[in-house]
């Protein structure tokens, strides 16, 4: 689905990520751990294709196509979608209208918003005066409309209060086709057909209660270390810190 092959990234002339190798297979959800300022967001922004994140070495491919220099919106059209940590406010643009613009299938913004108890914010300007948790919901709402195949989530649970965390968690599980529900076929068969993939940045690990992640990684000082059981990494980080975790896992 997504392959990063020796990718090195510069931001404003400074090398932030060094020689990143990563493969996310169809149906897989990966989790990124790492201390603040270590390059986690930079990695997602690079995959999404934001200007200012320059790939100086290596290449990226998505769905078999080289996307290393592909413009941002074309990646979005190919089915990539991202939820942002601190998205900008867009004055005069109603959230309702943006959700409608995002929707490929002409989904009803009202109906999607109901799922997140977000109806009353639909007529507000995009991200105008929203709390941290409300921003997360607004981002998810746009992703629900986009329905991407590759879901990039930057700390989707931070700032979300306890009452809403389950709601947010369930919506994310659905976006990733990881929701545990009754299928017309055995669960194991459904899992094989699963196409949605994702990369989630998390500090708290809360999201892992709702989404069964397949692979975990730690980024430290711009280097991606290990690819292991996410629960195991999370416990290790909790007990011994990132440094120790990287040392023992590598």
């Amino acid at each position: 689905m997504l392959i990063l092959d020796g990718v090195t990234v510069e931001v404003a002339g400074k090398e932030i990520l060094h020689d990143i190798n990563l493969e996310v297979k169809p149906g897989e959800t990966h989790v990124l751990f790492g201390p603040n300022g270590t390059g986690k967001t930079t990695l997602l922004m690079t995959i999404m294709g934001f200007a200012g994140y320059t790939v100086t070495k290596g290449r990226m491919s998505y769905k078999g196509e080289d996307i290393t220099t592909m413009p941002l919106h074309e990646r979005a059209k190919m089915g990539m979608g991202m939820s942002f940590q601190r998205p900008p406010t867009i004055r005069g643009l109603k959230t309702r209208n943006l959700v409608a613009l995002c929707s490929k299938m002409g989904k009803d913004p009202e109906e999607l918003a109901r799922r997140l108890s977000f109806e009353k914010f639909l007529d507000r300007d995009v991200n105008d005066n929203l709390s941290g948790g409300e921003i997360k919901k607004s981002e998810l709402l746009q992703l629900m409309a986009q329905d991407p195949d590759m879901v990039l989530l930057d700390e989707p649970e931070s700032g979300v209060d306890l009452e809403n965390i389950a709601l947010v968690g369930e919506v994310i599980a659905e976006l990733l086709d990881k929701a545990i529900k009754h299928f017309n076929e055995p669960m194991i068969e459904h899992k094989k057909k699963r196409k949605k993939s994702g990369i989630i940045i998390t500090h708290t690990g809360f999201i892992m209660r709702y989404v069964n992640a397949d692979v975990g990684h730690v980024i430290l000082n711009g280097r991606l270390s290990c690819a292991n059981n996410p629960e195991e990494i999370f416990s290790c980080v909790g007990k011994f810190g990132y440094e120790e975790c990287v040392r023992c896992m590598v």
Partner: protein
Amino acid sequence: MHGLKEKAEKALNKKAAVGRDIDLNIYRTGTPESNATGLAELCETDLLSAGIVPSGEGRSGSYIQEDHSVTHCNMTQKGVEISSIEEALKKYDWLKDYWWKALAVDTDKYTAFTELQPRRGYFMRVAAGQKTVYPLQACLYMEEEGVLQSVHNVVIAEEGSEMNIITGCTTASSLHSGLHLGVSEFFVKKGAKITFTMIHNWKEDVVVRPRTGVVVEEGGVFISNYVSLKPVKDLQSFPTAYLNGDNAVARFSSILVAPEGSWLDTGARVYLNGRGSRSEIISRTISNGGTIIARGHLIGNAEEIKAHLECNGLILTERGIIHAIPELEGRLRGVDMSHEAAVGKIAQEEIEYLMSRGLSEEEATATIVRGFLNVEIEGLPPELKQEIDRAIEESEKDIF
């Protein structure tokens, strides 16, 4: 109206306080003709793009003036008057008590010149306690090449009344140059409300000098919306409102686009004289190579007044000038006045955010600009908001 003529004659060479000086002699004043042409002969699309419905459907009254002649005037609602100013002056002796009372005849050469011309323009009045069901519409249409069109309008909202007016000033598709002088005096009586929306479609070589005075009594509300999205050679206007009564309100919003070669110098001045009066001046301006001077002057003369000024400008082309001049003048303790002004380009961060949702760079830019021009105007009737939205939608191809 004793002495007005003398005053006007003395002021005929008086330059305006701001704006480039215009030589009035190069334009043709002409003489009013009888109501020869009908509405049907005016180009319907010219009118529609200025928010004027030629059939008058969905309007409580219409006034249409072509160059110097009134071609159409009717009213459909009781308690609502709309007529030519010439007729109104003949009919009502008391109208002289309003004539040049919201604005001085010798303000500058343009007001003076207008006074010395034959009486043209419209008169609108809503009786006490009455409300217009539909907006009243007025259209000042310029047709003859090189014409000087001068009007003097008077609008009166009697106590507790409410009126919505939509005015479209426009030109024939064939006209390129002309001068429009428009004197307008508004009187908002106690507890009354006037919403005045102007959608102007001028031309590359048209010069415009509106002169507007507004007097608002206790608890009265005056809302002005000015939209000019098409090229215009040189437009300079600086309407002044006097909030004389307690708790009076004035809101001026403008949405302006200056293509290359256009010069727009506009804004508003509000004297907050009544205790607890409030005012807001908001402008959203875009330069596509042209020049915009966005002015605003708030004068706080009474206690507990609240006033806010907002000038936001986007320069979309390599060159273009937006000059915001916000002025706040508090004259005693207890005034609450603020302003914000920002001029620049569209934030790259916003464009990329929308691109990450699958919009191309052009679509993202258009969406942001549309949002930028989407001013939320408190108290604006939905049908007027629709007209503004429609004008913006129609001009989009010129904006981007």
